């Protein structure tokens, strides 16, 4: 009898092994991730219920028929469900597993159902008790789990004895299955927990390594690409990534060319050369990660047939609008596998670098804005003109104090107009007032060397144009034109109706012919800007034109809409 019982112990332990193998396989899936901690949230509890109910049923399924009852390992699922999910999950798992057992019938069906529910509840109650005492750590102790399973099984035996009738049948069942089930369930439950613990330890190690790499790369590349997305900075970043990930090679590209390459194959993957890899082009075109493992997706180097690189991962770098601005590529040589860690890490690095490049661009834009603000201020203050004007007035005070007072008035009119916001539109009369204030001072300054002729019919006085359109052009005509003449300079400012209906042409002409049309000149308040502002305001048929004959004349013509009188 005893030998028969021992045989059953061994047989049931074999079944337990099968059970555990299935558990081990499942532990490789994400399904197990929520089971590795004490579950609090509903989705986790649900997973917990589903998984352990399945194991509960599996426990019954793998059981051994002994007479009319089943020597089983159902308790493992019920107890673990309770321990990890709490009383509610324990109860639910026990109920599901119990119901399944009940459906199989036999003399002990009712007892087994009740006891399975009790087992789940027991696990749940211990879960609650330990949580209340703040001893969560004990929950994951395989020894404790084994003891709980042992107690649960003992409870089951008692319930069978108490519920099953006739008592003789109950006793016979308990007598034959008690030892195998007590042994298999406690060992099985303990080992199941051990399995969960190992899995958790491995994941932690994996994510620790991941975090360490990611943090080190983040720290070491900090600010590098912010200073500019160029070859020199990319090369530094590529080297750091290569050192930290240990991949075969690392490349960084922009949309057109290779910016940096380090590692295997650096002799023919030369920075500055255009992109030739089909995978990279695809990544840029489709804005997605392209992985050519060299196995399912073929990879051959597009540059050199004897390149030792055998697989590549291309990850796009994106700007704020998710547009591709380049790629980062990780390679492994032939015969080496791409570590999954590096694939995930690669995507993280791409995000990090994208962010850095973006920050850099924003900073550069800010700097540019500040620069153009300074430029505008400079144009408003116009220091060269100001000091020359002061010098002129200084001289006139000695010669003709009344005229000097007039010039001071002109100077203040000029600066008052200069300090207006340039986005406003003004009437031609306003603009002429600005020009006149300016010209009065220049006329005093250059004396006999400058003659100005203004012929603007009064009917055009109310035509509107962007502020600062005319004065800078007159100023250019003197500054870059007549002031460079050894002889006398002439400026003509006149207006006429355009050939096209409802247009007005305003001409500014000098007799120097010294400055060729340079619309793109970086001069802050230059002609290019005047042209753009008129076009932006009135449309592309209006704007600024330059007629020029070397040493004879430069004539700037503004074409304005006449109809804007009432605008």
């Amino acid at each position: 009898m005893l030998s028969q019982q021992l045989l059953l112990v061994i047989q049931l332990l074999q079944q337990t092994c099968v059970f555990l193998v299935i558990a081990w396989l499942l532990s490789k899936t994400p399904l197990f991730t929520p089971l590795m901690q004490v579950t609090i949230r509903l989705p986790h509890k649900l997973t917990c219920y589903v998984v352990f109910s399945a194991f509960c049923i599996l426990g019954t399924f793998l059981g051994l028929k002994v007479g009319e009852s089943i020597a089983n390992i159902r308790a493992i699922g019920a107890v673990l469900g309770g321990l990890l999910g709490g009383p509610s999950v324990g109860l639910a798992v026990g109920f599901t597993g119990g119901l399944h057992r009940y459906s199989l019938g036999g003399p002990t069906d009712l007892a087994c159902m009740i006891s399975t529910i009790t087992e789940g509840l027991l696990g749940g109650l211990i879960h609650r008790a330990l949580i209340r005492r703040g001893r969560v750590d004990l929950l994951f102790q395989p020894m404790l789990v084994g003891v709980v399973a042992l107690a649960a099984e003992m409870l089951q035996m008692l319930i069978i004895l108490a519920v099953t009738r006739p008592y003789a049948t109950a006793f016979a069942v308990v007598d034959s299955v008690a030892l195998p089930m007590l042994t298999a369930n406690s060992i099985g439950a303990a080992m199941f927990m051990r399995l969960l613990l190992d899995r958790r330890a491995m994941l932690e190690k994996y994510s620790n390594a991941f975090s360490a790499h990611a943090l080190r790369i983040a720290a070491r590349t900090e600010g590098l690409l912010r200073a500019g997305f160029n070859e020199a900075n990319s090369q530094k970043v590529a080297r750091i990534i290569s050192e930290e990930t240990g991949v075969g090679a690392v490349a960084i590209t922009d949309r057109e060319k290779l910016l940096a390459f380090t590692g295997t194959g650096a002799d023919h993957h030369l920075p500055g050369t255009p992109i030739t890899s089909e995978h990279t082009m695809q990544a840029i075109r489709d804005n997605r990660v392209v992985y050519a493992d060299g196995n399912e997706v073929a990879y051959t180097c597009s540059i050199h047939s004897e390149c030792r690189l055998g697989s590549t991962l291309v990850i796009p770098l994106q700007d704020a609008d998710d547009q591709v601005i380049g790629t980062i590529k990780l390679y492994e040589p032939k015969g080496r596998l791409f570590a999954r860690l590096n694939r995930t890490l690669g995507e993280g690095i791409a995000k990090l670098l994208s962010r850095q490049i973006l920050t850099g661009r924003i900073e550069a834009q800010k700097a540019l804005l500040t620069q153009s603000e300074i430029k505008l201020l400079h144009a408003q203050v116009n220091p060269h003109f100001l000091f020359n004007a002061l010098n002129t007035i200084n001289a006139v005070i000695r010669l003709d104090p009344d005229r000097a007072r007039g010039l001071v008035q002109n100077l203040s009119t000029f600066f008052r107009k200069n300090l207006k916001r340039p986005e406003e539109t003004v009437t031609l009369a306003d603009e002429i007032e600005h020009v006149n204030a300016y010209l009065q001072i220049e006329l005093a300054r250059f004396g006999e060397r400058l003659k100005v002729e203004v012929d603007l019919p009064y009917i055009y006085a109310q035509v509107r144009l962007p502020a600062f359109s005319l004065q800078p052009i007159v100023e250019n005509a003197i500054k870059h034109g007549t002031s460079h003449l050894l002889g006398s300079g002439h400026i003509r400012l006149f207006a006429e109706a355009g050939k096209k209906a409802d247009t007005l042409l305003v001409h500014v002409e000098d007799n120097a012919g010294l400055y060729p049309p340079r619309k793109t000149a970086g001069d802050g308040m230059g002609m290019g800007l005047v042209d753009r502002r008129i076009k932006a305001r009135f449309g592309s048929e209006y704007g600024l034109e330059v007629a020029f004959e070397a040493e004879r004349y430069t004539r700037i013509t503004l074409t304005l809409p006449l109809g804007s009188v009432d605008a």
Partner: protein
Amino acid sequence: MRALLVDDEPLARSELRALLEEDATLTITGEAGNAIEAMQAINQQRPDVVFLDIQMPRISGLELVSMLDPGQMPHIVFVTAFDEHAVRAFEEHAFDYLLKPVSAERLGKTLARLRKTSATAGEAAAPPDYSLLPGQRALRQLPCHGHNRILLLPLDAVESVTARLSGIYLVDTAGQEHFTELTLKTLEEKTPLLRCHRQHLIHPDQIAEIRLNDSGGADIITRSGQSVPVSRRYLKPLKESLGLG
């Protein structure tokens, strides 16, 4: 002390004149309204000091300095209304300069300093090294006087230069002669023109042929067919600079 005023703005000159006239020890020899007039006045009047505006038509004050013969350089006091770049250079090399509008006090200090230097060092005072100034690059345009007018002759229009008793003449590719205030020495130093004779310079790109003669010298035939003598003394250095040596 004799002073020349150079500024293209008449009011600026009159103001400076009014300030300088308060100093009894100073005589104003003349005024010039541009760099070419100034060069002429410097050569004729030989002033001790030139008050020189920087911003002037065609040839700036800084360029004018580069056209003057370092051996006959008067003392220069630069005058400017606003030129950060030049002022930085003046500060750096301790050149005299005045900011417009000129204050009487500052002008007084400058004059005091000028008197001190000329008194201690006398005629032997070494002129400051004006080649340290910005804008001292090679000359591209050569100012000269035509009939009744001032002309800026592009360097590449010059075939040769001839020195006569009456002055220095630029000979252009059409064979026309233009009087210039520039000295042979300045032309030799500040342009690619090469010395071929004590009295002649030649533009290397205009040489068509060099004909050696019996006396050990040679004659250059220019592209336009003119002949320029090469003396024995300058033949070898000329051939060397042409890469024929």
